[in-house]
């Protein structure tokens, strides 16, 4: 009984410890994702991308992320000529 309590406590303690790490990892991964988006949609900021046309088919899966991305990239308004998502 007591042992279970201790186990719980230890688990909780580990959870607390790993929280900031998880956040840090998530941020790292988000950065990787950001770079990926930049590779895909570099055309929008004037860097040519030979496969731009083929990235359009990825667009449906990107749309959600897209808005947050361009804000993080420091672009107030969407770099896309069309999208006024803000």
């Amino acid at each position, binding site marked *: 009984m007591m042992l279970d309590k201790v186990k719980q406590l230890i688990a909780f303690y580990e959870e607390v410890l790993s929280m900031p790490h998880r956040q840090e990892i998530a941020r*790292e991964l988000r950065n990787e994702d950001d770079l990926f988006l930049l590779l895909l949609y570099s055309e929008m900021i004037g860097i040519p991308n030979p496969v731009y046309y*083929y990235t359009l088919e990825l667009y449906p899966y990107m749309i959600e992320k897209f808005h947050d991305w361009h804000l993080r990239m420091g672009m107030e308004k969407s770099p896309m*000529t069309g999208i006024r998502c803000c």
Partner: protein
Amino acid sequence: MEVLNKSIIFVGGKGGVGKSTSAAAIAWKLAQQGYRTLLVSTDPAHNVGDIFNQNIGGKTVEISKNLHALEIDPEIETDKYIKGVKENIKGIVHSGMMEEVHRQLDTAKASPGADEAALFDKLISIILEERANFDKLVFDTAPTGHTIRLLTLPELMGVWINGLLEKRKKTNENYSALLNDGEPVEDPIYEVLKTRQERFSKARDILLSEKETGFIFVLNPERLPILETQKAIELLHKYDLHVKTLIINKVLPEEVDGAFFQERKKHERKYTQLITDTFTKQQLIYIPLFSQDIVSKNHLELFSKYF
């Protein structure tokens, strides 16, 4: 012509040397021999329809027994592609944003390179999917530069897509290891890219396969076409595409009348000599200059006797 044994034949060359005529005559001959043949034009200045005296356009049409033709229209292809993307977006984006997204996609349609990419995409579809319906595919291509670019795209695109895939894969692996307890993550983006990459690499394998694909260049016995052909052969060779057949078109007949033509023939002999000296590795097919344009199936019949 040995190249007629291949199931895919590309006909290239400088503008005006007789590419479309040669391609049409080759397709005609193959169809006559009983092969189900598709003649495809990738040249924006489509001439195939003019040769057969009928409208062809962006859909496959039957020209005669065993012979079908298609003139690729990048605009139709881009429209189809963008429509597909829009279909996929349905249900993902809330309706307020829909209009903006559509507008964005329509601008992409006009982006530089979209036409080329659409044409290339269609070419790959034909190579991968139409082979089931036809024994022979004959491609009448645009002037040299475009053709070389088109044929080297699989390489370029492949490198890019591979790079994107690698990157994506790494991120996914990290994500699943660090934040997903080792459970693999579902990633539609990766899947879509993967499908793309597989298509490109399959098409590339077919283009590079000497058993399946042959390349023909058409030229005239004149200085510029000779030089251009030489450069094109060298460049394609770098990409492992080997041109093994040359059609030398519009050769003056041996017996020419009048001082003017005799003079002309004298110069031409220099060039035919240069052709034999320059292109030692290629099979050379000579086709005479006819007294009239090639505008009918009978003419094509005559033309194709020289292959």
